[in-house]
């Protein structure tokens, strides 16, 4: 067992934190908030130069070969600095799906420019009224002519405004889920940009019988649900890492604030009730980190466990995130509900996290169903499972 970070992991973590500390403090972050589509060009370019736009890709594709832990460490640093650029949906979902499921010509056409940051592709999967991230979607793709006609609507697609193309998940006539690479300027595509709770940008997309060639189908087999399900699960784990970073920063800022804030003649951090609440927040942060580590390491060991790992982490981190966010605002007093301090932004980031991907309560129930069905929980979750004698 190796219970500390590898050299590569240390390097990724320290370089991301160093970059963000210099280039993405709370003031400089405004550049990204105000930029077109919520992407500051110099920031995205820097991500490319640092190699992060290829982090989850094999070295042969110009990537770093990062796995769940490496992606998680980067996302934790992003969470700490409230990065608004759509890294998760563009790189960890879009680019990665093309790398894993795309045909040779799709990979050749897209990957180099995606890794260099000259183009962006995001995943368009979520739909209104469908909480379960893994449930089949309502969008349809009917086969006809030389390709498919796509009809349906996708909701709050992160990073869609400003992207070059989206990967649309749609049900085919054979009942499977297929992914289509659709340029956003294709006839029949409506893009309605929106701002998100955490300052990031997204768009609602409508597809009115959008005609695409057969070549728009990602990969060969029409059913992409296997790879899509796994990458969604890994993305959920990554967003848990991101929340984990935001939680830790919120805790640190709150601890600092309570030491400065004087009431009744002394700093409020000297009151036991305040100390206990800070301690409860610290426990939540430690547990959230453990949830993320366990989920990432489980996925690296056994990709088939990704859905269960994601449900576990989302339930745990989601509950902790809500607690830490609410306590952080409470302990900031009235300042906690003003936009002036970063803490309001952390609160919104953590609320956005809790609402994403089906939500926290849903994840707990999903994990309960999975565990009761499989009885996998009877064994240790850290030691590799062995057939019991």
């Amino acid at each position, binding site marked *: 067992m190796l219970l500390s970070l590898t050299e590569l992991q240390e390097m990724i973590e320290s370089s991301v934190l160093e970059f963000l500390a210099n280039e993405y403090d709370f003031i400089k972050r405004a550049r990204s908030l105000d930029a077109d589509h919520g992407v500051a060009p110099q920031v995205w370019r820097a991500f490319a130069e640092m190699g992060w736009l290829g982090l989850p890709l094999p070295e042969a594709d110009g990537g770093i070969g990062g796995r769940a832990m490496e992606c998680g460490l980067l996302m934790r640093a992003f969470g700490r600095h409230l990065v608004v650029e759509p890294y998760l949906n563009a790189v960890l979902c879009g680019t990665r799906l093309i790398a894993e499921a795309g045909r040779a010509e799709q990979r050749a056409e897209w990957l180099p420019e995606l890794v260099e940051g000259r183009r962006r592709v995001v995943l368009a999967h979520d739909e209104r009224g469908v909480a379960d991230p893994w449930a089949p979607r309502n969008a349809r793709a009917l086969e006809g002519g030389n390709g498919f006609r796509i009809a349906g609507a996708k909701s709050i697609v992160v990073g869609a405004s400003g992207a070059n193309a989206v990967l649309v998940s749609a049900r085919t006539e054979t009942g499977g889920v297929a992914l289509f690479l659709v340029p956003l300027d294709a006839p029949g595509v409506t893009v309605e940009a929106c701002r998100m709770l955490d300052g990031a940008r997204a768009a609602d997309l409508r597809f009115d019988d959008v005609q695409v060639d057969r070549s728009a189908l990602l990969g060969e087999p029409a059913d992409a649900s296997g790879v899509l399900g796994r990458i969604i699960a890994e993305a959920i784990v990554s967003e848990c890492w991101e929340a984990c970073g935001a939680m830790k920063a919120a805790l640190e800022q709150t601890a600092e604030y309570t030491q400065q804030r004087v009431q009744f003649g002394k700093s409020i951090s000297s009151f036991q009730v305040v100390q206990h609440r800070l301690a409860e927040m610290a426990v939540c942060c430690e547990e959230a980190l453990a949830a993320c580590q366990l989920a990432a*390491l489980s996925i690296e060991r056994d990709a088939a466990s990704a859905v269960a790992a994601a449900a576990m982490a989302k339930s745990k981190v989601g509950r902790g995130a809500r607690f830490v966010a609410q306590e952080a605002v409470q302990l900031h007093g009235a300042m906690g509900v003003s936009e002036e301090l970063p803490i309001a932004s952390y609160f919104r980031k953590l609320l956005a996290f809790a609402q994403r991907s089906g939500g926290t309560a849903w994840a707990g*129930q999903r994990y309960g169903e999975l565990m009761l069905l499989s009885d996998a929980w*009877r064994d240790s979750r850290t030691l590799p499972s062995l057939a019991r004698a």
Partner: protein
Amino acid sequence: MNLELSPAEQAFREQVRAFLRDNLTDELRRGQRETSSMYPEPETSGPWQQALQRQGWLVPLWPQEWAGTGWTAVQRFIFETECALAGAPLVHPMGVRLVGPVILRFGTEEQKRRYLPRILSGEDYWCQGFSEPGAGSDLASLKMRAVADGEDYVLNGSKIWTTHAHHANMMFALVRTSTEGKRQEGISFLLIDMNTPGIEVRPIATIGGDHDVNEVFFTDVRVPQANRIGAENAGWDCAKYLLEFERGAGIFSGRLRSQLKRVRDAIGELEASGVDVRGDGRLVARFGEVCADLDCFEMMELRIMGALQPGQSPGPVSSILKLRASRLKQAIAELGVEVLGGEALRWRRESAGGSVLPVLVPDYLNSRAYTIFGGAAEVQLGIIAKSVVGV
């Protein structure tokens, strides 16, 4: 980071499993499974302690010259996890895990030779005389007096919440040998033969209906000064060292998971009798959340305990483990009661016939003590705030 076992760790794990297959009888498993109090009765823990002693695996934390195993922290995690998941009884910790290390650290050669072999063999069954009425989490306020008289001390006072004092033939206790100076500086650490005249043990019935703890009264009890560990008035150092072991040396996650198994088995029993437990979405969700809590706790414990060097203490972060382990114990017990629903109204049946159902309510009731003993949850939060958060 990775969770892969090295070939040596893998072989060790197989060895532990083989040992459990050969030595863990159904009777011992049942004894542990039907325990609703904190520790199993001596008839369950005793034979298991002997089996571990024969194998040389009883005291992994002791130095190797005193029967320690020399295991790495990861080996210890594997061992504790495998034992717990197989349903092995909990070894009574007072001798092997608490007073043993104190004697090793602070005792004289003669004291080591006298007491340690008897701890290993199980000849001595120990109880812990720390708490007093009025001195719980504020341990330094204890009052029981030990007045020097010739070669002896004469003890007067009482101890309370003394677990298994009614089984024990030996007690390690903190007594007041001075009232001068700081409160912590007038305390001595004493080993007391429970058969000494003047000691009276009175049971305290606990909320779960078990006889686990006692009140112990001392009236002019003579204890040789030779039974003192360390210098007079220096007992607080022994106590702090012992508390580190009490809070930080345990590996709880496997034990907690075996508790959760009881809840799952209860679901099975109820469903066999026609109750549709899993049709209740709220229970399924709660089960999922408890599983997630437990999984994360296991990872946190492995990361903290597994990274320790031999002899190293986890330090203040052990307060996080103590706090979470005790709350998880309560959450699992509470889930058990929720699963029972109206069946929880039925109080213990005399003959359970192998059913796990009658254990769940007493277990829940008793579990409330977990955030009180060993330093209440509020004490742990204070430690976490100061040492982890830094306020």
